[in-house]
């Protein structure tokens, strides 16, 4: 184990810190309020178009920090490795953690590694915890959506879920589609500078549908979404159609849903479009004064329907 740490993990992440091999990381924290979160990552396959479990583990936690307006500073990295995992794979995952951490401007400051018997894990499981600082004066909360707020999204939905499904190889889809996995803190920082962002949520598991329902429930407002305005790639739409899935419920790893004061919607949208991760940003709806948890969608045909909270995982249809 010491060899693994010395020969692989420290060198891969050494540029970040971790080098002291102390029992605990000793950190300097700038002024502001601390934000702290943790998440565990399990994905099959470990490597997929547009990312891998390492990148996912960094982005997932960084994005959770960004969604409360925090600037991510430090991460911990817990690795659970299955016996027999090719060292090349581990090296790739670690390189990816290091590069994603650089992109997100966070440091990996502490870590742990355990190896479990073959068959007890799917190659690699990763846990990351993250600390960030919310600058004084920033107040972004899932409870702050107000009637009239504009709903914005930073680009195409469903790319991550469908890219992973495609690369799992159970279906012979020949489409070029990359996961959207990306750290969003930089984009959030630009948005906060551009106008009054009331609430943010990353539509990961459960997709945009879950994010909308949570926003509506937690803020006690209704939401109205213009379905044709939601950016959706033809490739994702096509795969969903074949499998009987609804793209609104498909996972994203580089998207955010924002509720923005109506007067600032244009400015925030402009800031999003100016950022590489927000080029395809769009206004997709608005908040209303209706009941908490009520999310309605108006479709291309003009009829509207209510959105339900997703239940469990979406499964391809049997026919």
């Amino acid at each position, binding site marked *: 184990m010491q060899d693994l740490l010395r020969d692989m993990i420290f060198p891969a992440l050494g540029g970040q810190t971790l080098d002291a091999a102390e029992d605990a990381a000793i950190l300097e924290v700038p002024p502001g309020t601390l934000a702290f979160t943790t998440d565990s990552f399990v994905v099959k396959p470990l490597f997929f178009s547009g990312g891998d479990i390492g990148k996912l583990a960094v982005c997932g936690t960084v994005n959770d920090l960004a969604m409360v307006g925090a600037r991510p500073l430090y991460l911990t990295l817990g690795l659970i490795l299955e016996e027999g995992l090719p060292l090349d794979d581990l090296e790739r995952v670690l390189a990816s953690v290091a590069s994603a951490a650089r992109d997100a401007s966070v440091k990996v400051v502490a870590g742990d590694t355990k190896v479990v018997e073959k068959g007890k894990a799917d190659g690699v499981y990763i846990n990351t915890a993250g600390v960030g600082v919310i600058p004084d004066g920033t107040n972004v909360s899932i409870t702050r959506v107000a009637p009239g707020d504009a709903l914005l999204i930073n680009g195409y939905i469903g790319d991550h879920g469908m890219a992973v499904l495609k690369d799992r190889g159970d279906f012979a889809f020949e489409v070029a589609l990359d996961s959207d996995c990306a750290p969003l803190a930089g984009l959030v920082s630009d948005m906060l500078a551009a106008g009054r962002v009331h609430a943010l949520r990353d539509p990961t598991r459960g997709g945009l549908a879950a994010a909308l329902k949570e926003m509506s429930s937690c803020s006690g407002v209704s939401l109205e979404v213009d379905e044709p305005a939601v950016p959706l790639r033809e490739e994702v739409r096509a795969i969903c159609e074949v499998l*009987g899935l609804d793209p609104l419920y498909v996972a994203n790893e580089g998207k955010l849903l924002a509720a923005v004061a109506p007067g600032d919607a244009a400015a925030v949208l402009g800031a999003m479009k100016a950022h590489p991760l927000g080029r395809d940003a769009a206004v997709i709806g608005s908040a209303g004064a209706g009941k908490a948890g009520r999310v309605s969608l108006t479709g291309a045909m003009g009829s509207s329907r209510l959105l339900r909270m997703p239940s469990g995982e*979406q499964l391809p249809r049997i026919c």
Partner: protein
Amino acid sequence: MRYIDEFRVPAAARELLREIDALDARGTFMEVCGTHTMAISRAGLRPLLAPGIDLISGPGCPVCVTADADIDRAIAVSKKPGVILTTFGDMMKVPGTEDSLASASARGARVRVVYSPLESLAIAAEEPGSQVVFLGVGFETTAPAVAGTMLEARRQGIDNFQVLSFHKLVPPALRALVGLDDFDVDGFILPGHVSVIIGSDAYAFLPVEFSMPCVVTGFEVTDILQAILRLLKMGASGASLEVEYARAVRPEGNPRALEVMSQVFEPCDAQWRGLFTIPGSGLAIREEFAAMDAGTWEVELPEPTRSKGCRCGEILCGRIKPMDCPFFGGRCTPDNPVGPCMVSSEGTCASYYLYSESEGPDERGEGADIGR
């Protein structure tokens, strides 16, 4: 993908709706296939149709029509020592008499969700010490893939792969439905995917013997509106069988798929949930493949119990709509299904629930999910 797009254009759909309105005709039509039910619900089509036009859902969701007894058998097989039962995920939560595969699995049965029968065969190859049993549920769309996998198992000499065949055939079920005394439907919107395999000729008996107007239909909104328009016109001109989905369906179907299917399976009587036992509507594994047939295994089955009060059966025959069931949206939701129509992603109740046009009895304000 441009191909599909032509069929999605709202302007074209609105034009069709105008044409339908202009006919000023009435009719109740059954969309047989769960994928159609889903497409109709998702597009919010029902409220856009003129008041005299009603769409009701048929028995076209394979999960929904699987009988309690068959679920019980699958669960019993999964509990046998050394068995790994593989299944499409949709079947996991379907309640049998006492249990579901999900709860059997939680109590130690080895049940694995797969996306294809070939994946089951791969598991069998990897785990020669186990008996891998694939739960074969589906219509003519799924059965050829299962048959192909069985042929492949034989070719590779993999002898620890078995199948429980609960496959169902669509035309015999339609024959049984139209024969019901209280069946009150003016035309069928016939399934697209199934018809790609079996061909449109398989439904020729419906207009001929039962004067039932039929349109084989694709899955875009405009496909479905086209079908409704054609069915309404047939109401005036007389019943026939038309193929709206001609871009994918041939009269003779897919001969290769049909051949593989009949090499391995033969028609048998089958029990449909909510209907009854329908002659020749199931697929049994042929004698020649008996070694791969897990349906003949000795298992202990629970005593069938009386109905749980769920009205899935009546919904599947088009007698009532999901909202007419006292459990709908209250005691029975996708999280906590009482009947299979609420379980499957394409179940009638699930699609009405998921895409309801108004607030249901349980329109809950769910709390926040803590992170992920």
